[in-house]
């Protein structure tokens, strides 16, 4: 891609992936505390641990995106 009018390169895709995963992870964790219809294996709290995992991976990808952008 070309540089923008300020002469900067675009952010790496990993930054966007990381932010989306992290934000969605937080929303999934919040959802695990919202009362809803009964689901199979609800007692294993899938929203809580899967959402947490998404936040961790989101953080890793966001960091990779920022670091690779700074390196140019």
């Amino acid at each position, binding site marked *: *891609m*070309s540089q923008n009018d300020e002469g900067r390169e675009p952010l790496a895709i990993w930054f*966007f992936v990381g932010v989306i995963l992290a934000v969605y992870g937080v929303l999934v964790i919040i*959802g695990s505390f919202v009362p*809803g219809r009964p*689901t199979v294996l609800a007692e294993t709290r*899938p929203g809580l641990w899967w959402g947490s995992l998404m936040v961790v991976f989101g953080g890793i990808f966001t960091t990779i995106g920022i670091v690779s952008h700074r390196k140019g």
Partner: protein
Amino acid sequence: MATIELAGLDWAIIVLYFVAIIGIGLYLRKFTKTGDDFFMGGRKNSSWVAGLAFLSANLGALEILGWTGGTMKYGMFVSHFYWLGAVPAMLFLGLYMMPFYYSSKIHSVPGYLKLRFDERTRLLNAVSFAVMTLLMSGINLYLMALVFKVLLGWDWHVSMWVSAAAIGCYITLGGLMSAIFTEIVQFFLIWAGLFLLSILGVMEFGGIGNVMQGLPSTMTSLWATTGDAGSNAMGVTWLGLVMGLGFVMSFGYWTTDFLVVQRAFSSKDLRSARLTPITASFFKMALPFIVVVAGMVAYKLVMDPASGFKLPPDPSDPSKLWNDAALPLLIVRYYPVGLVGLGITALLAGFMAGQAGNVSAFNTVWTYDIYKAVINKKATDEHLVWVGRVTTVVGVLLSIGTAYLAMQFNTIMDYIQAIFSWINAPLFATMLLGMFWKRTTSAGAFWGLLAGMIASFAIFMGFRFNLVGPDLASVLTLSAAPSDMTRNLWQAIWAWLVCFGVTFLISLFTTPKTDAELVGLVKGMTPKVDEGKVWLLGRPGFWAAVALIVVIALNAYFW
């Protein structure tokens, strides 16, 4: 059946996806200035970015829903479409064909046909590819609206117009790079939103061994039942599988379909371009762990009335159960608030990325291989970017038109399913001869390609209108009563054989191009790729060997 109800948080997750992809498009707009930026993603991508986009351009929601449902019918055989019908072709593309594609700095696959052969072969392929992508994009749109109408109760028109508008918006803004960014986001959303279904399904049964236990032997083996077509649910022998799926259809799609190959063209250098399909092959190998495992879990649940898991009637044939609904129904079974929104967003992203891939490939082929080649040969780079943006909007509108056509005439779906073997299967023969036999002539390529396309279409119409009796069917497909899948495989084999034979024969009697004209386009006329100075872990050959060993091991384990 009752539709799936979404909570406010689920809606928030879906709306956030639209905000994110349009935001990415707006952000990338500032960096999209030249033709290379708009159509080739700037040619600066790493093999990781290009590889994930390469895979995701093919990884639509249709595939995921279809193969999860397909597992309920064909069992482990579905894995053939990944481990036999994709990985070997992807490795071949990376190792042997990419140097010719990438080094010639073309914008498209038809562009290679122009350099290697002539304008008429390019135009034949460009026009057929443009029509195919628009049809596929429209069908994708229609099926998305159908799935969301039946399962979620969403209005047909709103589903189609909102998703098409979002796609048109972000591709018009950022071109191929927008498509690549959203494809990679889609890849992660699919794993985040759907892999958990397989995990929870296995947890419910107490382990993968318990899921497999009690399934018919035809569902749990890959090769053991392929000695006789009557012994497996797909009704195909190992020869039909290897030749039809493993060779012609697979190589025809993965090595020549510009929709996927375009992603490799966006790589920063030849080594990254070669690594693109090889990197993608590892992720392709992993996909059966979503679709096949989820399909087997759904099968076991359907077989157990006490589970409460029921499939709805198929909207196109209410006398049958709708296997493709299995995955969304697993979402309802296992996912609480929030995860439901994530699962639906993953499917939505999958549908939209499929359309976006078609639209971005269409705008490139139209702009470079039809508009610039025929209509305006002196067009400037700036003008071509403008044409690409206008073409994106027109392509999206034509896709919507195709979707409405499919809604009115359901039979159009039959034609779409066969379209790959009309176009890609013969094209693979043209490419193979063109890249590896310097004697192949322009006349041979054109008439061979045309003959292969006609042969494939004729066989399709013969079966479609019952003109092929059992005797002829036995000759054409090695089965007197072939299944649709078997017909498709053999139709592709015949298209490839006819194209190969006609191209070969005509080339023997016509004048080939000179050696000087073939430099960089044909094996033997192209400088050998030197990987000597690259560390072992950076070499395409090393990773292709690892991928091959892993895929052979998977086939052996599930033999």
